[in-house]
């Protein structure tokens, strides 16, 4: 087995009295889509924020390509090839698509001590990348606020892929999306994975996970409930694991099958 692209070893994270993560281990390999599932408040977002340098872990070791690392800011994580598409999107509605796309890594030209953004290049790349994701923008100066939810999600993913991410983290990219948009996003994940990038895909929805995941890890109240490979587990089992196996059972009857 090759070294994982990213490896989290027994990560703990406390917020004052709240223990959001109580020792979680996790890794993702090249070209793999590893799904992270769990109930509300299970700690999924906290976990991937730790991975992408937003939070510092209270305890535990992170390794990128086998090397120990400690990120002090999201920038560090990005430099290390970890790109994240957050649940709350991290797009700024009043700014143009291009500016959002390049945010934090603007391409620059310089003349002597002066440096400025190379807008021509930036616009072109943005248009190209977006159309390669199947979205035709009216113009790159369009404000992100005028895009639909699915389109925004795609901008965020395109941005991450473009900047040569080795690992792409997606936090519930599908929860607010319609069917068509959802299948678009899932198809994009599939495409990205096939290009050799490791994908971490967070969702509540077992079916979305089953559709693209290679491995599945369930978090519950800050603890891992184990990892399973594709084909080794049935959707119903996964769902039981997420819900903790209790309570839910009695509803199943009246509601029929997986929710």
């Amino acid at each position, binding site marked *: 087995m090759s070294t994982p692209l990213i490896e989290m070893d027994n990560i703990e994270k406390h917020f004052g009295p709240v223990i959001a993560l109580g020792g979680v281990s996790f890794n993702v390999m090249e070209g793999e889509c590893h799904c992270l599932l769990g109930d509300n408040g299970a700690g999924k977002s906290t976990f991937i924020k730790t991975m992408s340098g937003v939070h510092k872990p209270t305890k535990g070791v992170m390794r990128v390509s086998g090397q120990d690392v400690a990120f002090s800011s*999201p920038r560090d994580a990005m430099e290390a090839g970890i790109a994240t598409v957050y649940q709350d999107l991290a797009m700024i509605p009043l700014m143009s698509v291009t500016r959002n796309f390049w945010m934090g890594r603007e391409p*620059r030209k310089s003349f002597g001590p002066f440096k400025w*953004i190379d807008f021509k290049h930036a616009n072109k790349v943005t248009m190209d990348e977006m159309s390669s994701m199947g979205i035709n923008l009216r113009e790159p100066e369009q404000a992100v606020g005028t895009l639909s939810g699915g389109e925004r999600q795609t901008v965020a993913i395109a941005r991450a892929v473009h900047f040569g991410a080795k690992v792409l983290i997606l936090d519930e990219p599908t929860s607010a999306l319609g069917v068509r948009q959802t299948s678009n996003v899932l198809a994009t994940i599939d495409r990205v994975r096939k290009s050799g990038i490791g994908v971490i895909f967070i969702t509540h929805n077992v079916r979305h996970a089953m559709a693209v995941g290679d491995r599945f890890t369930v978090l519950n109240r800050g603890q891992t409930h184990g990892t399973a490979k594709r084909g080794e587990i049935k959707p119903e089992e996964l769902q039981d694991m997420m819900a903790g196996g209790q309570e839910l059972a009695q509803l199943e009857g009246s509601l029929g099958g997986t929710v």
Partner: protein
Amino acid sequence: MSDERIKQVSAIRRAMIRPELGAICGTILVFVFFFMIAGDSGMFSAEGVQNWGVVSAQFAIIAVGACLLMIAGEFDLSVGSMIGFAGVVIAILSVQWGLPIWLSIIAAFVVCMAIGALNGFLVIKTGLPSFIVTLAFLYILRGLTIWLSILTTRQTIIGGVKEAAEGDPLAWLFGGVIFKGLFQWLGDIGVIETFTRGSRMGQPVVDGIPMLVVWALGLVIFGHWLLTKTRFGNWIFASGGDAQAARYVGVPVNRVKILMFMFTAFCATVFATCQVMEFGSAAADRGLLKEFEAIICVVIGGALLTGGYGSVIGAALGALIFGVVQQGLFFAGAESSLFRVFLGGILIFAVIMNTYIRRMITGER
């Protein structure tokens, strides 16, 4: 995935709807208005132009700082107090302590920018609204200014800076004029009026472009370039638009905001220094209510009070409108107390117009 339910907007309309559109229209309106009612009062003679030009330049200097800060999502009510403070620091250091002017000026810049940084630091560390933190500094700085100047000189006005500034290199940078030769020539060929008697007979009434105006232009150009063309400008927008989102993609939001507070302090100090160098004295009451005036210019110029949206050019036009209206009313001989009524009216009118324009741009509802 474009939506057939939304009508396409025409190219002209798209080119027109930009943050500063409101301010551009406003500027045209204001000039037309004053041409009509005060065209023959000397308002558009060389001397008159210099008059409102200088006033507008003053507003522009502080408006540029306030604009960038506002776009970065914060604002600063301590600008006015900072102006008074900076002036008094320069005067005390140079006149009372006998330091050379250039050193005093540099010291004032350092102190004020440090206070700006402190403002920013407090806002960021405590997570408090900048309204509160800078309101506190509005009081603290004004109090310190009065106390310092009374403590050291038993007065609230400190004169004698002009004498101390003779031949100082930095002093010229803030208080001098440029293009003297050009203006002398313009005077000689009769384009500009000349003095007809007295010790300065033959000299043109306007003897050059004051450094104040040069500073204003410089700052506006710099601010505009910074905001629209550079990476840092992108970060300013981002910090004001959604600080959390910006942080997630690796924008150093805290640094951006603190730097913008410092830049605002810088602009206030430029304002103060120019004033001290021009008039040769500093007083504890300088800059009263300037914070509001700066904010008004910026808002007239189309920026969003809540950050993330705006334009330096707009703010500069806002300053121009403000200056022209203020001085123009004098030229037109209007009752001066009505100036404030006008100002309030213009403010509301401009903001409503800008809101409308912004909605068109962003599709916001």
